[in-house]
């Protein structure tokens, strides 16, 4: 672009077309239509076994079930809040399953589907939203960082981690390691995210920036964060960006895998924009009827990520009723387990407040811990 072909001020209509419409434009990578038809793309493909196709669907169903159960638990007062992934299952499972064991993921607060793929017990996630912990899993063991709530921060951590991979010489071949940084459309406006783009590009870090554009940042539409499609942001920093249908688990898998492979092979960062939709509220505290039309949700329901994979499995005759029955009962069992676990989850010990603030405890906290312990003991003793 030059000054001579300045775009006109974007009118409401033009801006609508950019990102909040339910059609994402021709640049969208898709391998599965909303009707479950398998389509082909010149640059991306998957070649999975029947079992793998079924497993992806299974993931989608189980992850949604976790989400539904958690939402119910919140409604019943068992969780303080819950950030639902409803509608984003395919983007998360697709990208999550594209990760190799040693690839490290840096999530936001909504990546329950990725957590699932990384083997994090959903109950641990519930602990966070219940207020019993700020995470609870071992990020190093799971290769899945703790949820990061301050928007955008984790993209820099991911980039730094990826720089470390390069320093370790663990990049540059197909055996290399890679990192994935999750963030939202809203987050794209944060300074930190753009600094992460600078760093990743300059150091050619093996990191995939995975932006779930779910069309909303709480009540703010993506058009209020950018007047052009988000995947194009990467161009300004000198690395590739690609937009994938985030409701298509196969495309999400294919695009992420390719970007991760490029990273591990030493080709540097990629920005993946997964075009998807937040079908629920921002969190259980939110009321989306205040800011968006029911019709928008209805339009997106036609692109439900589970339905289209289900249609695909049917069309390919990969499933029978036994499969669905088994899956249903597995889902029930999972839901029951996490419900039970949640209800039985102990509160943290009061004195744990003072623990682990530092690796080497300070005298001040030792004192405060002791004094508070004595104070509590005094109560128990009935003083």
């Amino acid at each position, binding site marked *: 672009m030059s000054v001579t072909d300045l775009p006109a001020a974007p009118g409401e209509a033009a801006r609508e077309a950019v990102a909040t419409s339910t059609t994402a434009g021709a640049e969208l990578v898709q391998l599965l239509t909303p009707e479950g038809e398998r389509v082909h793309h010149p640059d991306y493909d998957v070649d999975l076994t029947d079992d793998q196709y079924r497993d992806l669907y299974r993931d989608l169903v189980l992850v949604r079930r976790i989400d539904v159960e958690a939402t119910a638990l919140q409604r019943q007062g068992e969780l303080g809040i819950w950030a639902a992934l409803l509608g984003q299952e395919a983007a998360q499972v697709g990208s999550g399953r594209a990760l190799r064991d040693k690839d490290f993921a840096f999530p936001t607060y909504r990546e329950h589907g990725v957590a699932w793929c990384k083997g994090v017990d959903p109950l641990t996630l519930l602990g966070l939203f219940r207020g019993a912990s700020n995470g609870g899993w071992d990020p190093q063991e799971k290769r899945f960082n703790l949820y990061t709530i301050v*928007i955008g921060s984790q993209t820099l951590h991911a980039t730094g981690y990826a720089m470390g991979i390069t320093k370790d010489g663990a990049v540059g071949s197909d055996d290399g390691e890679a990192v994935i940084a999750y963030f939202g459309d809203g987050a794209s406006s944060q300074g930190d995210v753009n600094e992460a783009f600078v760093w990743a590009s300059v150091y050619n870090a093996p990191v995939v920036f995975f932006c779930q554009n779910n069309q909303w940042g709480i009540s*703010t539409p993506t058009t*209020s964060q950018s007047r052009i499609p988000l995947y194009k942001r990467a161009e300004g920093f000198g690395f590739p960006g690609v937009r994938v249908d985030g409701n298509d688990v196969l495309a999400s898998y294919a695009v992420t895998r390719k970007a991760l492979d490029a990273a591990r092979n030493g080709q540097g960062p990629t920005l993946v924009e997964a075009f998807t939709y937040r079908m629920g509220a921002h969190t259980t505290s939110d009321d989306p009827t205040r800011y968006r039309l029911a019709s928008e949700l209805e339009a997106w329901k036609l692109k439900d990520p589970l339905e289209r994979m289900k249609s695909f499995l049917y069309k390919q005759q990969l499933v029978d009723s036994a499969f669905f029955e088994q899956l249903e009962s597995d889902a029930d069992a999972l839901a029951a387990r996490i419900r039970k676990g949640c209800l039985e989850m102990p509160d943290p*010990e009061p004195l744990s*407040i003072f623990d682990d603030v530092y690796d080497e405890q300070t005298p001040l906290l030792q004192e405060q811990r002791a004094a508070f312990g004595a104070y509590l003991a005094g109560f128990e003793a009935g003083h």
Partner: protein
Amino acid sequence: MAQLTMAKALNEGLRTAMEKDPKVLIMGEDIGKLGGVFRVTDGLQKDFGEDRVFDTPLAESGIVGTAIGLAIRGYRPVCEIQFDGFIYPAYDQIVSQLAKIHARSRGQVKMPVTIRVPFGGGIGAVEHHSESPEAYFAHTAGLKVVTCSNPVDAHFMIQQAIASDDPVLFFEPKRRYWEKADVDTTMTPDPLWNARVVREGTDATLIAYGPMVKTCMDAATAAEEDGRSLEVVDLRSLSPLDFPTVLASVRRTGRAIVVHEAPSYVGLGAEIAARLSEELYYEMEAPVLRVTGFDTPYPPSRVEEEYLPDLDRVLHAVDRSLAY
């Protein structure tokens, strides 16, 4: 006279400020159609239009940085930071620009920017949603820092903050948003920078602000049953501090306990204790005590009740003070 929640009292205050001065703008994340996550700006975009009440992109440095530019242009921006824990990305703009531009320009550029921040704990939230960062700003020359403890103050203080030609950090005790009081919008409020004795007493002075004022009032009521007469001072303004009011109270009672949610170490309580100890060196009957959050990160919400100062911890400190 209407019974209003603090959230609604703030909303009405913002509305009045906007009606009075067409240069007042409201900006922040989700403050338009949604009315803010606490609904403090509810209905304002509808009534004043998207030009004056607008959702910003999601970046706090951008919010404060552009507000500064708007102020240079002659506007009076009121920025909302969605939660206390999300003010830090804007820290540089606040500390190095907003706070310093008036001095840098020798008063030629005024910075009538108000930054509203719901703050403090007690609402069962996840990490970063229960912080008390006021000391970081009170320590910064060039900023003014205030906090309201009740709907009436909320209503007037927000208008006064907006009317101030200095930048004001306006901390709103989020767990008190839903508490109600009769608000007479026609009354003449106290000056913004004045502290207020909200309960008179003779044995000791509880010094508090924002969310802890109610806690201290409850403690004073409970103490009364034990025959103890506690005075309560609501600081309202944390910078500048209305020290004469505090001093006069403690001079009367001889004992002081400062109460806040923020960690103790290098907090507001330290300043008040240091100053009282110096100025009332011969008059204190006990050292100034502090009842505060611990010097740890705000804990997961299932233990926040233990972390937060409460009636019992306040009374425990009163006991300690009286034992001197």
